[in-house]
């Protein structure tokens, strides 16, 4: 197992940990049985811009780092842009992940999509 420095940094001092008060889009994926759950909180303003994002993660180092990096990357983006967000964007930003840890970045991308869907459902 070989993590890049960026992964370790994001694991050791993750950004955006916790629950945002007044989040209007929340998505959760994974299950404890599989050893990973990722929950993403979004605060989206009326212009459809993601003003703030945060996460809670039960998972390995790569999962924590992916959550930290992913939330950091989507803050300030429109929900259209964020909707196109892919797991490979996280992997690239982290400087790569070990092959068996790619799925942890997939979780992050999926959790974001789930949170956006939740926001859209709430709005509708």
């Amino acid at each position, binding site marked *: *197992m070989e*993590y890049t420095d960026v992964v*370790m940094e994001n*694991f*050791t001092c*993750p950004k955006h*940990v*916790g629950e945002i008060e007044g989040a209007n889009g929340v998505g*959760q994926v994974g*299950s*404890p*049985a*599989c*050893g*990973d*759950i*990722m*929950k993403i909180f979004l605060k989206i303003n009326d212009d459809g811009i993601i003003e703030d994002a945060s996460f*809670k*993660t*039960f*998972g*390995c*180092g790569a*999962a*924590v780092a992916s959550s930290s990096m992913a939330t950091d990357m989507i803050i300030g983006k429109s929900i259209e842009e964020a909707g196109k967000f892919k797991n490979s964007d996280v992997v690239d930003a982290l400087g790569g992940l070990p092959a*068996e840890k790619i799925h942890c970045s997939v979780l992050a991308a999926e959790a974001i999509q789930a949170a956006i869907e939740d926001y859209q459902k709430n709005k509708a």
Partner: protein
Amino acid sequence: MRRIYLDHAATTPVDPAVVETMLPFFTEHFGNPSSVYTEGRGVKKSIEAARLQIAKAINADPREIYFTGSGSEADNWAIKGIAMKNQAKGKHIITTTIEHHAVLHTCEYLEKQGFEVTYLPVDENGLISLDDLRNAIRTDTILVTIMFANNEIGTVEPIKEIGEIVKEKGIIFHTDAVQALGNIPVDVKDLNVDLLSISAHKIYGPKGIGALFIRKGVPIDNLIHGGAQERKKRAGTENTAEIVAFGKAAEMATEQLEENATHMKKLRDLLIKGVMDNIPQVRLNGHPEKRLPGNANFCFDYIEGESILLSLDIIGVAGSSGSACTSGSLDPSHVLLAIGLPAGVAHGSLRLTIGKHTTVEDINYVVDNLIQIIERLRKMSPINAD
């Protein structure tokens, strides 16, 4: 930064005295021990001296000790060798659900080749039931293979009692004693075992050298065919340096057994108490008493093992989650599942295994930091109760 190594069940550093013994065999006494000339003859003697040291460590006859390239090879040889040689008598094997993968995957392979395997369950402490064993024995059972001490949760199985039951039925009995050697007494005469696997790198010897004890007269096929080495039972030019090192390590382990075990047990209990008293929602895995002197294995609810390991690593502590061989795979430990933990909980396991050089300060440092690490990770967890 000072490093605290608490993963002695995965592997141990080679003792400097053992390194010393080994060195001359690379450049000076490098001869092929099978040779007639001077360079080979001396080496042969050194190998036989090491064989005697190993034999003494487990109370066997030196002619019952066969060197292998690892504990895994010893396990594979014992199981496949007995199965292949004795298949005319029957094709049923009994083992447990908590064996090391070297045993489990070998049994699974044999299942593909037409053998039948019964995997005995264990209770919540990791102990098998002797009644289950008695009930599992069939007329076509040719081999029982049950580990001496578990590498993850440290539980020590009742090998002597198992041996008695198995012997009575005239079945061959193998035990994987890789984790037992150097930690608890191992006496093949007392234990009624026919085959027993050990590995040097768990007792401050080098990696890549193991041994299989084969009681005289036990019918077994070779696993590695070829030259006449190891009395024609295991081919390959002898790994002289590491054989000599294994001998020395076994001798030291035997001499220091009581002292080391007492020391490790003291620190283990300190560690267990420190963790159980200071961290909520934690459980100790493995048997409360019948466990290896150096083994502590915990499950922390709501968090995942690798995160704990990485956090510990950052502050200079090396531990493990599940067995070292499982990392790289993402499944929770088969041993933790076997003792009945739900997968979610099994993912949050931490194994800390103490060695002869571990100190009280090490343990205190680990406990203090672990309290904070667990708290921090739980704050990050979406399934934290509060």
